[in-house]
């Protein structure tokens, strides 16, 4: 295997990553690289292993074989929180908000990475502690403002409509100030108008927060519409990689999606 350094400084690099659950090889020897400020798609039929790839990148599962590097440092086998600390944030395919917390606290809790206070400060509540709390409260407010969630900020997260919950999950991930954002089927359950809004939102996020986005999505219109590069998985193997135009023509991809619409 060639070393990661040989590549032109990728943000994220998967090197022959494999994971097995008992007898099932869910992801098999997948390699991929992502650069700074890129918008990349990860597609594949149901059960292809897309979510599992996310789970390995974010440390939910440790790969059975292979290595994952982020900003040229190995993150293989690190705990999820440690990986988030390094700058990878995600959303979940089946939304996982803090459902009983308010919308506001869902976002505010994610700012914890950027405070210096410790347990003693929480107890003494000195001027510095209060300034810091005020600071993250303001930042939360600003973030909610950008994504038009201010109106519902005091509602418990579980009471939001589905689309808003998906948006809130993205906002919460952004509050950790990631350099790479992983979105797992953000358009699921949205109507066509909402999907158009979502595409705008994703592009906007990339510009505004200067980060890379890796997007898992079944809706080809969305993927082809916004991604610069696309990786395709089938049965846990990577079968293709390229620009949307290349992917559309790719025989293996066409075969994998046989009978389904991939051109738009």
């Amino acid at each position, binding site marked *: 295997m060639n070393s990661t350094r040989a590549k032109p400084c990728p943000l994220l690099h998967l090197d022959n990553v494999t994971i097995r659950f008992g007898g099932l090889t869910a992801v098999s020897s997948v390699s991929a690289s992502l650069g700074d400020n890129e918008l990349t798609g990860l597609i594949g039929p149901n059960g292809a292993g897309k979510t599992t790839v996310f789970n390995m990148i*974010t*440390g*939910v599962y440790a790969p059975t074989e292979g290595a994952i590097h982020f900003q040229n440092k190995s993150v293989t086998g690190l*705990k*999820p*929180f*440690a990986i*988030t*600390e390094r700058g990878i*944030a*995600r959303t*979940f395919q089946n939304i*996982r*908000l*803090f*459902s*009983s*917390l*308010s919308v*506001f*606290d869902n976002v*505010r*809790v*994610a*700012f*914890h*990475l950027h*405070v210096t*206070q*410790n*347990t003693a*400060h*929480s*107890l003494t*509540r000195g001027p510095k*502690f*209060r300034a*810091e*709390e*005020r600071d*993250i*409260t303001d930042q939360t407010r600003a973030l909610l403002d950008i994504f038009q969630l201010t109106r519902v900020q*005091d509602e*418990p997260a579980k009471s939001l409509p589905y689309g808003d919950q998906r948006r809130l999950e993205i906002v*919460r*991930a952004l*509050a*950790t100030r990631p350099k790479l954002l992983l979105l797992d089927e953000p358009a699921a359950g949205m109507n066509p108008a909402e999907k158009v809004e979502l595409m705008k939102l994703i592009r906007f996020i990339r510009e505004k927060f200067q980060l890379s986005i890796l997007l898992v999505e079944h809706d080809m219109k969305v993927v082809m519409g916004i991604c610069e590069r696309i990786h395709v998985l089938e049965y846990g193997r990577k079968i293709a990689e390229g620009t949307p135009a290349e992917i559309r023509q790719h025989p293996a991809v066409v075969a994998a999606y046989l009978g389904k619409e991939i051109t738009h």
Partner: protein
Amino acid sequence: MLPRSQIVLLISLITAGIISASSSRIDDYILDVILGIGINIILAVSLNLINGFTGQFSLGHAGFMAVGAYAAGTLTTGPGKVWFDASGASPALLFPFVLFAGGLTAAVVGLAVGAPSLRLKGDYLAIVTLGFGEIIKVILQNIEWLGGSRGMVGIPSYTSFFWCFGAAAVTIYAAWALVNSTLGRGFLAVADDEIAAEAMGLNTTRYKIIAFVTGAFFAGIAGGLYAHLKGYISPAGFDFNKSIEIVVMVILGGMGRHVGVVIAVVLLTVLSEKLRDFGDKRMIVYSALLILLMLTRPQGLFTWKPARKAITG
């Protein structure tokens, strides 16, 4: 300028001092019940930090209370009495340090228990903490210089109204202050969804341990107060039933609520005093209450707000 919460704490402490100064006028039995309420408040509020706010169901709180009681008792009655006497200071002055030492010992034991167990979830955690609680009891029963299963007798009555309710006020303040901070929002997040919390960069193990150790610390303080109120402690007094009693208070009050839990403590302590003459009827009421509550109002009896509002300051 102090934050409002600290002003409230200060006022509570002063009030406790004033009441304490005239506590000799209160009937002995009633004072005993009232001090019992204070101790139970400390126990329930500290357990609420673990079971309620952080969502880590512990069934071994009485074990930490026992550790605190024995550690404090050792200093004033057991082998540690030598230092206690040698210091020459008045017992009233030394007592807070004794309590603190009890709390600290319980916190250390809490760390030793929590660090391995908190990797487990739900009912497994519950049963492991139960196990640790019982182990603590058995170990205490086997330490001869602590009185073995006969217990420790002749502990001086240093627990005054002030120390009891002062400690209760500090416990409530501490629990409130922790929860209403970036750290405390971490507790709530861990209770709500651990996987999401990890994905937000929260070291969930660390949060759980902080909550657990803090809870154990205050349970230890409560133990020290209890020992110096009753004058007698034995391992059997800190068994599974005691842990359950604290759990019931927390559940009745509504897990993750401060005010509700305090009301529940007052109610249940008074109720169980009233039922004391009925012996086992008391526990029948307790257990029936618990079942009914879970079937009809799992969110607790005294919860009226749907969700916590964000507070700062």
